[in-house]
C-alpha cells in the first residue's frame, strides 16, 4: 500500500513539474515574422537571459511597465537567450519565483549569427537589448544596453 502511494505521488509530482517546466519557444523564422509584422502597433522586444545580471535587474521595471501599459497599443515580448541545456529548468523556475507574468519565449536558434542582424544591423549580440518597432509607422529604435523605468516609459510614450 505504502509503495503504491509513493508511486502515485511520484507520478503526480512528475506530471506537475512537467507542466511547470513548459516554456514557450520561438524559432528564428517566428522571430522574423514578428519583426516583419505590418500591423500598426508598437512592439517592444527585450532580449535577455537568466544568466545575465543586468538583464535580470531591469525585469522588475519592465514587469511594472507591462502592467501599466495599454496592451491594445503596445505588445511586449521577452526573448530568453538562456542556454538550451538548462533553460527548461531555469527559466520556468525564474518566472515563477519572481511572479513574472510577461510573455517569455525561449529562442531555439543558437546559431546567433544567423539572426542577430535581422533584429538590428548595429547589434553585436550583447544583452540586455531592447527593440521598439512599429513597421506600419516605420519606427525602429534599438537600445543595446540597460534601460531604467523612466527611460522605458518615455520611449514607449514617444512612439505611441
Amino acid at each position, binding site marked *: 500500500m505504502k509503495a503504491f502511494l509513493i508511486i502515485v505521488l511520484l507520478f503526480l509530482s512528475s506530471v506537475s513539474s512537467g507542466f511547470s517546466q513548459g516554456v514557450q519557444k520561438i524559432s528564428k523564422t517566428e522571430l522574423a515574422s514578428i519583426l516583419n509584422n505590418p500591423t500598426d502597433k508598437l512592439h517592444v522586444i527585450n532580449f535577455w*537571459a537568466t544568466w545575465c545580471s543586468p538583464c535580470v535587474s531591469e525585469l522588475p521595471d519592465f514587469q511594472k511597465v507591462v502592467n501599466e501599459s495599454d496592451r491594445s497599443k503596445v505588445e511586449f515580448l521577452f526573448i530568453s537567450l538562456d542556454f538550451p541545456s538548462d533553460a527548461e529548468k531555469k527559466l520556468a523556475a525564474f518566472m515563477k519565483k519572481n511572479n513574472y507574468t510577461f510573455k517569455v519565449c525561449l529562442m531555439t536558434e543558437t546559431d*546567433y*549569427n544567423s539572426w*542577430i542582424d535581422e533584429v538590428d544591423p548595429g*547589434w*553585436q*549580440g550583447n*544583452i*540586455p537589448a531592447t527593440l521598439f518597432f512599429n513597421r506600419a509607422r516605420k519606427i525602429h529604435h534599438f537600445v543595446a544596453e540597460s534601460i531604467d523605468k523612466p527611460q522605458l516609459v518615455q520611449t514607449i510614450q514617444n512612439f505611441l
Partner: protein
Amino acid sequence: MKTRTIIVSLILSLFLFTEVQAQYKVGDAVSDFSLKNVDNKNVSLAQFASAKGFIVVFTCNSCPVAKKYESRVEQLDKDFSSKAYPVIAISSNDVKVNPGDSFEDMQKKAKSEAYTFPYLYDESQAVAKQFGATNTPHVFVLAKEGSKLVVKYIGAIDNNADDASAADKKYVEDAVNSLLDGKAPAITATKAIGCGIKWKKT
C-alpha cells in the same frame, strides 16, 4: 584669429576622437598596446617577434558565455601558438560593476586553469575601446603584413556557445587556418549573444 582657433581645436578634437574611438574593422591596421599580465609584467604585441599573427580574445572571469568558451580559448592557444598565432586574452570589465573580474580574480583564474597565454588587465578600458570590443567573448584575429598588424576576422569563436561539440562553424579556427595557408578567411565577421563589456560609469 578666433575662427582659426576654432578650426584648430576642431581638427584636434577630431584627431583625439578617432584616437580613442578606433573601433577596428576587418582590414584595419592595429596599434600596439601595453597591458599588465596576471604575472604583473606588461605585455605588448611587439614582444612576440616570431608571431605571424594573434588571436586576441576580449573575455572575463564572470560572464557565463565567456565561461562556456574558456576551454575552447585554451584549446585555440594549444593549437595555434605553436603555429605562431598565440592567444592574447584581455579582460576589460569595470570591477565596480563586476567584482568577480578584479585583477586578483584574474590571477586566480589563470592559475587554476593553468592558462598558457597572457591574460591582460585592461583597467582603463582603452584597449577594448580602441578595438571596438563590445562583448565577452569577442575575438579579433590579427595577421602580420610587413610591419603592420591587420585585422582579419572579428566576432565569435564558433556557432554554438552552449555545446562545443554541436558547433559546426568554427569561425576562429577556420580563419587562422586560412591565414596559415596564405589565404584570406572565408568568413571575416560574425556576431553572437554575449555579455556586454561592463563599462565604467562616467
